[in-house]
C-alpha cells in the first residue's frame, strides 16, 4: 500500500482527468439511485392520487427522463475519461520504469534477458496503470454514494440514518479490511507457489537431459503436480475468502435496506413520513447496491496493484551499483586499458576473478579464452563499469574508471554483448543505436565491414525494411553481423567483442573471424571467445582459468 503511495506523483500530474472520471462515475451512480428512488416515489404518489387532474405529472416524468439521459451520458463519459487518464499515466509509468531500470546493474541485465522477467514487468506496469479504473475509482464512488444516502436519511428519516450508515460502512470499509487481513498470508503463499512452479518448469526445460538420464522424469512430474495442486488449494482458499466477503457485503447492504424499510414503515405508521417517500427511500437504498456489488473485486485488484507497485519500487530503490564521480576530469586520450589485481564475485567471498592483472596496449588485438563460467563476460562488464571490482582497479588510458565520467567511458569503449539483441524495427533503427547521427554512407560502410551489406541491400526496402520481431528474418549469423556493425559504428577506440561467433556454424564462424581483422583496423580489440582462432586474428591470447589470466600463446 505504501509503495502504491510513492507513485502518487505520476497520478497527481493528471489529477484533473481523474477527478473528471471520478465525478462522472459518481454522477452515473447517483443518477441510478435517484432514478429508482424517484420512480418509486412517483409510482406510489400516482397510486395514492385520487384523480389525474390533481396530480402534477409533468415534473416527475421529466425528471425520470432527465435522469435516464444523464445516466447514459455520464456512463459514456466516465468510461472515456477513465481510459484517457489511464493511458496518459501508462505512458509515464513506462517511461519511469525504463529510466529506473536503466540505473540497474549487471544482475538486472541478466534477468531481463529471460523473457519472464520482462513479461512480469509489463504485467506490473499494466496492473499499476489500471489501479484507478478498476480499484480506486469504484471504492471512492461507492463510499461517496453511501455517505450521500446516509446524509439524505439524516434529513428525511433520522432514525434510520445510523443503522443504514453503519451497514454501508461495514460493507464498504469493514468487509474489505477483514478480507485484506484474512488473505495476506494466503496471498503470499500463492506468489511463492507460482514462483516455485516457474522454477520447476525452468528446471524441467533446461535440466531435461539430466532428468531423463537419471530416470527422474516421473519424480519431476510428480513434484510439479504437487506444486500445482498446492497452488490450486491456496487459490481456492483465497476465492472462498473473497466469496465470504462478497456474501458479507451483500448481507450488510441487505441489512441496511431492511433496517431502512422497517424504520420508514414505523415512521409512516406514526405519520412522520408519507407513503411515496417511504417507497422512494427504500428503492433508492436498493439502487445503492450497485455501488457495493463491486467492492470485493475492486479490493482484489487493489491488492494486485499494490504488489505490482511494491516490485516496481524495489527496482527504483535498488542502489546503483556504480557511483558516478563528482565532476570527473575528461578521460585522457588513448586506446589502452589495464586490469590491476582485480577481484570480483557476484557473491562476495566467492570471487569469479581473483587478483586478475593484464594490460592491453592501444591498437593491440587480444583474445581471451577459457572454460565457460571462468569469468570472461564478467571481465567485459567490469571494463564497461557495469560493476566495480571488489578489489584492485580497472583503468582505461591510465585513468581509474571510478574517476572517469561514464559518458566518456562509453564513448571510448564499446561492447558487443554475448547476447546482444536485435531490436524490433529496421536495420537502420538497430544501427542508429550505435550512432544516431550516422549518415547512410556511414551505415553502409559499417555493414560492409561486417559483410552484411549484400544481405541488407537485397531486402525489399533495404536499410528501412522491417526485420521482424527480434530480427526474425535474419539468420543467427546475419543477426550477429548486424550487432557487430552496430558496435563498429560506435566511435569507440576500444572494442570488446564477447563471443562474437556464438550461434554461428563453423564455416560462418571462420569467415566472421577472418573479417574481424580488417573490420576493426586501427582500434584496440578484446576478443572473448570459445572458438578456435585462425592465424592472425589476435596478437596474443590470454587463457582465463580459475579467475586468473595466463598467457597462452605469443
Amino acid at each position, binding site marked *: 500500500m505504501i509503495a502504491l503511495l510513492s507513485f502518487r506523483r505520476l497520478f497527481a500530474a493528471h489529477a484533473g482527468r481523474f477527478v473528471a472520471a471520478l465525478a462522472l462515475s459518481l454522477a452515473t451512480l447517483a443518477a441510478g439511485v435517484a432514478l*429508482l428512488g424517484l*420512480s418509486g416515489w412517483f*409510482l*406510489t404518489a*400516482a*397510486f395514492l*392520487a385520487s384523480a*389525474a387532474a390533481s396530480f402534477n405529472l409533468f415534473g416527475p*416524468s421529466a425528471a*425520470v427522463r432527465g*435522469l*435516464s439521459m444523464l445516466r447514459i451520458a455520464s456512463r*459514456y463519459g466516465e468510461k472515456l475519461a477513465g481510459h484517457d487518464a489511464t*493511458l*496518459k499515466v501508462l*505512458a509515464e509509468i*513506462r517511461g519511469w520504469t*525504463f529510466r529506473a531500470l*536503466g540505473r*540497474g546493474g549487471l544482475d538486472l541485465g541478466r534477468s*531481463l534477458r*529471460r*523473457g519472464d522477467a*520482462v*513479461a512480469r514487468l*509489463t504485467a506490473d506496469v499494466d496492473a499499476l496503470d489500471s489501479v484507478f479504473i478498476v480499484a480506486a475509482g469504484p471504492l471512492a464512488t461507492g463510499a461517496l454514494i453511501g455517505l450521500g444516502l446516509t446524509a439524505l436519511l439524516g434529513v428525511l428519516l433520522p432514525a434510520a440514518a445510523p443503522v443504514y450508515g453503519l451497514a454501508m460502512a461495514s460493507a464498504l470499509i469493514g468487509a474489505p479490511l477483514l478480507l485484506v487481513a484474512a488473505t495476506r498470508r494466503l496471498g503470499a503463499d500463492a506468489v511463492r507457489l507460482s514462483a*516455485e512452479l516457474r*522454477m*520447476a*518448469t*525452468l528446471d*524441467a*526445460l*533446461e535440466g*531435461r*537431459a*539430466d532428468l531423463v538420464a537419471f*530416470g*527422474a*522424469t*516421473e519424480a519431476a*512430474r510428480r513434484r510439479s503436480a504437487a506444486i500445482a*495442486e498446492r497452488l*490450486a488449494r491456496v487459490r481456492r482458499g483465497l476465492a472462498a475468502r473473497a466469496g465470504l466477503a462478497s456474501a458479507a457485503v*451483500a448481507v450488510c447492504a*441487505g441489512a441496511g435496506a431492511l433496517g431502512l*424499510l422497517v424504520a420508514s*414503515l414505523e415512521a409512516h*405508521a406514526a405519520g412522520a413520513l408519507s407513503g411515496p417517500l417511504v*417507497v422512494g427511500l427504500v428503492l433508492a437504498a436498493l439502487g445503492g447496491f450497485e455501488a457495493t456489488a463491486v467492492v470485493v473485486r475492486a479490493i482484489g485488484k487493489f491488492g494486485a496493484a499494490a504488489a505490482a507497485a511494491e516490485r516496481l519500487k524495489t527496482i527504483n530503490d535498488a542502489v546503483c551499483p556504480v557511483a558516478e564521480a563528482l565532476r570527473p576530469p575528461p578521460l585522457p586520450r588513448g586506446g589502452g586499458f589495464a586490469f590491476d589485481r582485480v577481484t570480483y564475485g557476484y557473491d562476495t567471498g566467492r570471487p569469479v576473478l581473483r587478483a586478475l592483472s593484464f594490460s592491453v596496449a592501444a591498437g593491440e588485438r587480444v583474445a581471451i579464452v577459457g*572454460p565457460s*563460467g571462468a569469468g570472461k563476460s564478467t571481465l567485459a562488464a567490469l571494463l564497461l563499469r557495469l560493476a566495480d571490482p571488489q578489489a584492485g582497479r580497472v583503468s582505461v588510458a591510465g585513468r581509474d574508471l571510478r574517476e572517469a565520467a561514464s*559518458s566518456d567511458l562509453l564513448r571510448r569503449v*564499446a561492447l558487443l554483448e554475448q547476447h546482444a*539483441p536485435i531490436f524490433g524495427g529496421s536495420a537502420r533503427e538497430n544501427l542508429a*543505436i550505435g550512432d544516431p547521427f550516422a549518415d547512410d554512407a556511414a551505415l553502409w560502410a559499417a555493414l560492409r565491414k561486417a559483410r552484411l551489406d549484400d544481405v541488407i541491400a537485397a531486402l525489399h526496402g533495404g536499410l528501412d525494411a522491417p526485420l521482424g*520481431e527480434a530480427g526474425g528474418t535474419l539468420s543467427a549469423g546475419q543477426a550477429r553481423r548486424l550487432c557487430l556493425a552496430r558496435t563498429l559504428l*560506435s566511435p569507440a577506440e576500444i572494442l570488446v567483442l564477447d563471443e562474437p561467433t556464438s550461434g554461428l556454424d563453423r564455416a560462418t564462424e571462420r569467415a566472421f573471424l577472418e573479417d574481424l581483422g580488417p573490420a576493426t583496423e586501427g582500434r584496440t580489440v578484446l576478443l572473448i571467445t570459445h*572458438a578456435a582462432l585462425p592465424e592472425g586474428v589476435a596478437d596474443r591470447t590470454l587463457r582465463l582459468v*580459475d579467475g586468473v589470466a595466463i598467457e597462452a600463446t605469443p
Partner: protein
Amino acid sequence: MTNDARTTSARTAARAAARRLSALSRGAAAPLALAAGAPLVGGLLLIAQAALMARALDGAISGGTTRADLAPVLLAIAGLIVARAGLGFVGDCAAAAAAETVKRRLRNDLFRRLLAGDAVAAADRRSGALASALVDQVEALDGFVARFLPAAVQAALLPLAFAAAAFAYDVTVGLLFLLTAPLIPAFMALVGWGAQAAGDAQAAALARLSGRFADRLRGLTTLRLFGRLEAEAAALEAATDELRVRTLRVLRIAFLSSAVLEFFAALGVAGVALYVGLSYLGLVDLRAAPLTLGAGLACLLLAPEVYQPLRLLAAHHHDRAAAIAAVQEIERQFGALATSDFTLAAPALVRCDDGPWAIEASALTLRTSDGVTILDRADLRASAGARIAVVGPSGAGKSTLLDALARLRPAEGTIRLGARALAGIPEARLRAGLGYVGQRSRLFHGTIADNIRLGDASASDDAVRRAADRAAALPFVERLPDGFETLVGEGGLGLSGGEAQRIALARLYLRDPAAILLDEPTAHLDAATERLVLDRLLTFARGRTMLVATHSATVADAMDGVLRFEAGRLAPCGPRQPRASLVKDAAA
C-alpha cells in the same frame, strides 16, 4: 497479406482458440454447473424477494397492515437476503473450484509435454517464455472459467425468468422486459461491429507498443552501453501518448455499446415507472382489472434486475478475450515442442547384473538441429569394460554423439548397448544401466543434497556425503555456510562451472551403471583437482564401460584408447588402443 485478410485469419484463429477453451472447460463440468446454477437460483429468489418487499410496502401504505402482520414478511425478506448471499458464496467457491481444476489439469498436461519434448534444451530466451506460458498464461484462463462462463449462463436465462415473473403481474411490463432484454445484445452487437474493426486495429497497435516496450526492456543493457537510454525512454512515452490519442478516437465508438446497455436499462426502469404510474392515474388503460400498488412496485423492483446479468456479462467480456489470447500464446509456445511417445520413467535402481555393457554404433549419422551433418555413417566400438576418450575441437559434435548414445536425441544408424539395440531397451532398464553426466548439467532448485540425490532419491546423508567426497566436491561444500543444505539452482546460490560439474558427478556415484558417458568432466578444474577427479573416476569405472568426451590431454592419456572426432569422421589415434577399435568413417 491485406489488412482484411489478416483480420479474418486472426478471427479464425481466435475462434479455434475459443473452441479449445470450451473443451478445456468441459473438464470441470460438475463444479461449473454449480457455479452457474447457484446464481440462477439466487436470481429466482430475487423474484420472491421483490414480491415480498412490494407486499410489505403495499400492505403498510395502502392496506394499513399492522406491525404484527408485517413481521413474518420482513423475516422472510431477511431470510432471502441471507440465502442469496449464501448462494453467491457457494457459486463463488464452485467457480474457483472449476477454474482451479481446469488450470491444474492444463498445467500438468503442459508439464508432461515439456518433459516429453526434444531433449536439446531450448535457448534461455525461449525457456523463460515457456515457463511464463505455463504459469502466467494458464492463470489468465481463471477469469474465463470462474466469471465469464457463469455470467454467460445468467445473461441467457435470468432476463427471461424476470420477464416471466413480470407477466404474472402485468402483460405489458412482461412484454417490455421480454422485448428490451434480448434486444440489448443485438444492439450491442450492432454498435460493436462498427467498433470491432477499428478496435482490432487498435488492439494490434497496443500489442505492438507493448511488444516494443518488452523489446526495449530486453535490450536495456545494450541501450545503456550505447548511451541511448534517455532517448528511448522519451520515444516510448511519445509513442504511448500518440497511441492514446488514436485509441480514444476508437473508444468513442466502442463505448457506444455500453451506452446502449445503459439506454435500455434506463428505458426499462423509466418505462415501467411511467407506465404503472399512468395506469394508476387512469391515463393509460391497457388492463381489464386495476393494478395493485404491490404489483406495480414488484414490477419496478424487477426492472433494474432484468438488465443486471447483461451488465455483468459485459463487464467480464474482456476475461474471455484475455483467455483466448492466453490459449493462443500457450499453443504458440508449446506447439513448437515436438511430442514423442516418450514415457516418464522411474527406474528401479538395481540393474540386472549383466556386467559392463559394450558400446557399439554402426553407420551412425548425426545432424544438428539446423541440419548440418556432424557425423556421416560412422562406426564406433568400445568393448565391455573399456575406457575410451573422445577428443576433437569444440563444436565438432562430441556432445551430440554422447547425447545420441544416451538416447537423448535421435540418430540415424544402429546403436547397441550391451549387445542390445538401444531403441529396444526399456526406458527404466536403460537409465538404470547407463550413467550419463552432460557438459552443462543443470543444478535444480533445491539444496545441494537434493541435487546429489537426483542419483538416488533414497540415499542416506552419509551416502550423499561420500558421493560428494568422491567427486571432489566435499571441500567447497563444507566451506558453504549451510553445507549440504545450501540452496542452489534457480533462485539459490550461484555455483561456478567447476563446482556445478562436481555436484553433477556426485550424482553418478550414487548409482551402479554398466556403462558411463561423460562430457568434459574436468573442463573447469585446475590441474590438481582434475587429477583427483580423474583418479576417482577411473576407480569407479572398474567393471564398467566408460566413454569420456574431453579436451584434456591428462584425461585422454589415462584412457585405454582415444577416438579423434574431426570434420564428420571418427578415427582412433594414440599409441594405446588395446580394447577399443574404432573404425573409420564408413564413407572413407
